[in-house]
């Protein structure tokens, strides 16, 4: 009897919640994080000319052209890089890179279908063709090259440490002895920090944002990953977090795709080079990552293999 009444009451509450879903305040929930280009003198996002009649001998692209949409994998929890707010709008530097590459492949922004792909399933998702391209702070390395193809690099990041604002003890990776460091299972900075010479304890979760929350809760002492990602989080909470600023690895970001599709790889490389030359790249950077305080740097040379 008792369970029944409480159950129906709870069900009613849940129903009420979902029924009222259509109402409610519009706009983004919470503070306006990641949604940046609002001020009058804020850098504007560039627009990209969409190429027409693109003919590239690539199986992936042919399929995408038939479907009329390009599926691009991205992150959704990295402010200023790959972020999705509660209205479903995506923003960030990686998203811009995806848009400029797609434009050169002949796809308008609205023909891009973004798919959130977390780090731990990236290789599987790309190699099995769930996404056509992947743009999401994806470090190029030889191990991954066995499974996926990389265009780029389009950005050079380096592993760094994110700490609480009042943290005194941590000045770099060498001062991590006995401290707890959080990162994502299988990520490159984690593999570095796990080396015995640092003597750090590690915690492995599946999302960086969950690591950041652990840091805020005093459960871990530092979060390690690429500086670009960390600066985004620090810029979101400038009063609580800061980045050490001593990169200890090199993380060249690439665009992931099918391993054997050389034609597509060349096309994406061409696109990257073109936009780096015509200034779109810098504009996109200033309007996204630049806002988080990391200074603009010349993009690394594209590596064709």
């Amino acid at each position: 009897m008792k369970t029944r009444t409480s159950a129906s009451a709870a069900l009613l509450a849940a129903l009420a919640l979902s029924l009222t879903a259509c109402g409610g305040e519009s706009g983004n929930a919470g503070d306006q994080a990641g949604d940046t280009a609002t001020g009058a003198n804020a850098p504007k996002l560039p627009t990209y000319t969409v190429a027409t009649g693109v003919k590239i001998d690539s199986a992936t692209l042919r399929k995408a052209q038939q479907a009329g949409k390009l599926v691009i994998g991205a992150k959704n929890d990295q402010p200023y890089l790959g972020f999705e707010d509660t209205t479903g709008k995506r923003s960030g530097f990686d998203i811009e890179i995806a848009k400029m590459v797609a434009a050169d492949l002949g796809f308008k922004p609205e023909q891009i279908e973004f798919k959130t792909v977390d780090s731990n399933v990236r290789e599987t998702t790309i190699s099995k063709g769930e996404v056509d391209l992947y743009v999401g702070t994806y470090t190029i390395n030889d191990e991954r090259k066995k499974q996926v193809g990389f265009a780029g690099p389009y950005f050079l990041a380096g592993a760094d440490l994110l700490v609480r604002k009042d943290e005194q003890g941590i000045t770099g990776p060498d001062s991590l002895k006995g401290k707890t460091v959080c990162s994502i299972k299988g990520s490159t900075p984690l593999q570095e920090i796990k080396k015995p010479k640092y003597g750090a304890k590690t915690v492995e979760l599946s999302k960086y944002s969950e690591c950041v929350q652990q840091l805020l809760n005093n459960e871990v002492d530092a979060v390690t990953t690429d500086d670009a990602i960390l600066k985004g989080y620090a810029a979101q909470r400038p009063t609580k977090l800061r980045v050490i600023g001593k990169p200890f690895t090199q993380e060249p970001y690439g665009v992931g795709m099918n391993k054997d599709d050389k034609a597509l790889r060349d096309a994406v490389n061409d696109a990257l080079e073109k936009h780096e030359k015509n200034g779109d790249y810098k504009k996109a950077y200033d309007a996204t990552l630049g806002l988080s305080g990391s200074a603009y740097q010349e993009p690394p040379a594209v590596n064709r293999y």
Partner: protein
Amino acid sequence: MNVLLDHFADFREGFVGTVLLTLASGLLAMVLGVVIAGFRVSPVPPLRAFGTAWVTLFRNTPLTLLFLIAWFVVPVIFAPGMSPWTKALLALSFYTSAFVCEAVRSGITTVPLGQAEAARSLGMTFSQTLRLIVLPQATRTVVAPLSSIFIALTKNSAIAGAFSVTELFGWQKTLSDQGYAIAWIFLWVALGYLVITFSISGLFQLLERRLGVAR
């Protein structure tokens, strides 16, 4: 080529991790479950309410959500600074204790009424009746369901792999992300779990035979 031989050290570590986590949270779940079952049949209303709330809460919440609570809510409210392993232990054993409690409670109901009545008429108190007469007899009927519960616990411990605990499932994930053929990894991990679950059911069958007396 052979995934198991190449990464045997990691595999062993994962296997041991699963076994330890299962053992520890199984023990804690047993203790909690029996205590809560005692609450649920006790004469004191708030204890009964507490027991019911406990079971309702933990039986109807996905285990993954409990892990999230252990990671993101409990440290804020109660105890900061628990290790990932402790968090996994708490989430797993609280979840499992709800099932243990229900098994024990239904075990208690299978003990013939006359037994409790006789104990009462000998002048035993509630806790004496429960401790000396009812629970020992309930053990027999509870053994079979407990076996299933512990097997489920073994498999549930796989969720801890996503929350920074070294165990068997994490091994398969790391390796398949490195591009090893999924079929082989799947096979070895499945075998690892089969070894654990079959040991548990074997152990409990033994226990059942030892405890099984004609009634």
